[in-house]
């Protein structure tokens, strides 16, 4: 059995983090397909990374994904917007599902929070798996819809799903 563990990230991975973010596999389903420059990344790191809770998912001691969770509040509600960054140029379904499972274990430990994910409509694999992790689609009539779409800057090409933990 292959061993999966998590490892908190620290500031020292600032350049590696950018390397991973710029891998084609991550840009392909990202809202911005462009290569992120170092100068933009360094600024983002000081401004936003501090607000983000991230950890590596290691498989046999090698990083395969970074799980990211942006925590923010809307009125009296506490939101978490999660994502996954692949650390490898190619991944497989088994590792991806395992990573989602590990991320969900982290999210399920959070109390009284709404967790959001966005999935590119063209991502055939993930578009079929959200239901297995307890998410439901965020429809237009939902009170969070406008706010979440605006704050998270989610494009038309993405569907948003959420769950309460």
């Amino acid at each position, binding site marked *: 059995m292959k061993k999966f563990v998590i490892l908190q990230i620290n*500031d020292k991975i*600032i*350049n590696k983090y950018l390397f991973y973010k710029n891998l084609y596999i991550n840009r392909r389903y990202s809202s911005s397909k462009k290569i992120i420059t170092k*100068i933009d990344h*360094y*600024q983002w790191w*000081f*401004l936003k990374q501090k607000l983000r809770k991230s950890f590596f998912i290691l498989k046999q001691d090698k990083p395969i994904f970074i799980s990211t969770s942006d925590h923010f509040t809307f009125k009296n509600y506490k939101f978490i917007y999660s994502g996954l960054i692949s650390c490898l140029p190619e991944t497989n379904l088994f590792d991806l599902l395992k990573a989602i499972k590990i991320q969900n274990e982290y999210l399920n430990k959070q109390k009284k929070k709404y967790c959001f994910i966005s999935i590119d409509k063209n991502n055939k694999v993930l578009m079929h798996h959200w239901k297995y992790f307890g998410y439901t689609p965020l429809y237009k009539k939902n009170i969070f819809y406008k706010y979440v779409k605006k704050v998270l800057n989610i494009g038309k090409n993405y569907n948003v799903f959420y769950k309460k933990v």
Partner: protein
Amino acid sequence: MILFRIDLSIKYGLGHYNRVKSLANYLNLKRYKIVVDKLPNTSFFKNEKENIIFLYEKNNYFIDEKKDAKLFLKIIKSKYKNPVVIKDSYRLGYRWEKFIYKSCKKIISIEDFIEKKHFVDYYINHSPTFSIKNEEILNKLKKNNKKNCKFLLGPDYALFNSLINTKEKIISDLVFYNGGSGNLLAYEKIIKNIIKIRKTNIKIIIIVGPFAKNYEAVYFTFKKYKNIKILHKPKNILSTLKGTKVFISSAGVSTFESSFLKIPTLLFKMNNNQNLSDFDYEKLGHYFSLEKKDLNFSDKVVNLIFLMLKNRIQIKRMMSKTSLNIKSIKENYQELMKF
């Protein structure tokens, strides 16, 4: 006698000189000579004058390795028989070394590039690339060097100035430096933008190296700003680095000096010999390195500098486990004193 042969000019900057001076200091050398093309036309070398020998007369210049080696051999044969030769030059390589080899006790080369061929007894390359053992690179080096050559590799052999006078510490928020011969006006827009935003609430030091061609231009550009101090040809930049919060510099020898002092640093890769990967700079504790072309995005650079200033404790923490231990570096170099 130890003879150093180095590149020292506006074109090649101060890096080679600083490295051999550091080595002379590590080895506590009293008798040595530094052979250069021409005597530098600057007061910076006033105290070193009697140790400097120039190879080319007024209208003569470096042509090729062989001619240079012949002139160098003349010096050896006339005055300094059977010396140890330590060479730090981008222009001189295998041919030069082979030509003078038989007239020397030992030849040592200080090098930055892995691909270059050599014919020396000791090969020194202090690049952080060698922090981790890489068999492929080691084999390449062995292939490019003569049999029985000894390799002194990585930051354990870092050559930089570590002599600091704490009493001379100069306090500032930011220090800008572009090497011994770099043009400080490359930072002009950035410095002016910083002053525009912070006005008087910031103290900036600009260090102009001894080979910088445009000191006057730099002086006239910034003289009206009371919170900018220009240091021209300082003997030692450590006391200035020690007292600053963020150091903005080209990625030359000063990367070792700011790493040694653990000063948050923003590096710009200004030349071809400053083309290390991010991960190599990280081995020295430098996590922020940009390209020369990034200087065009002055607003972003200014924003980043302010963020680094604000988060400098966080950056110092990132650098905390990086250790250039000068005592152990000196001990490592004692091997060179065996002959």
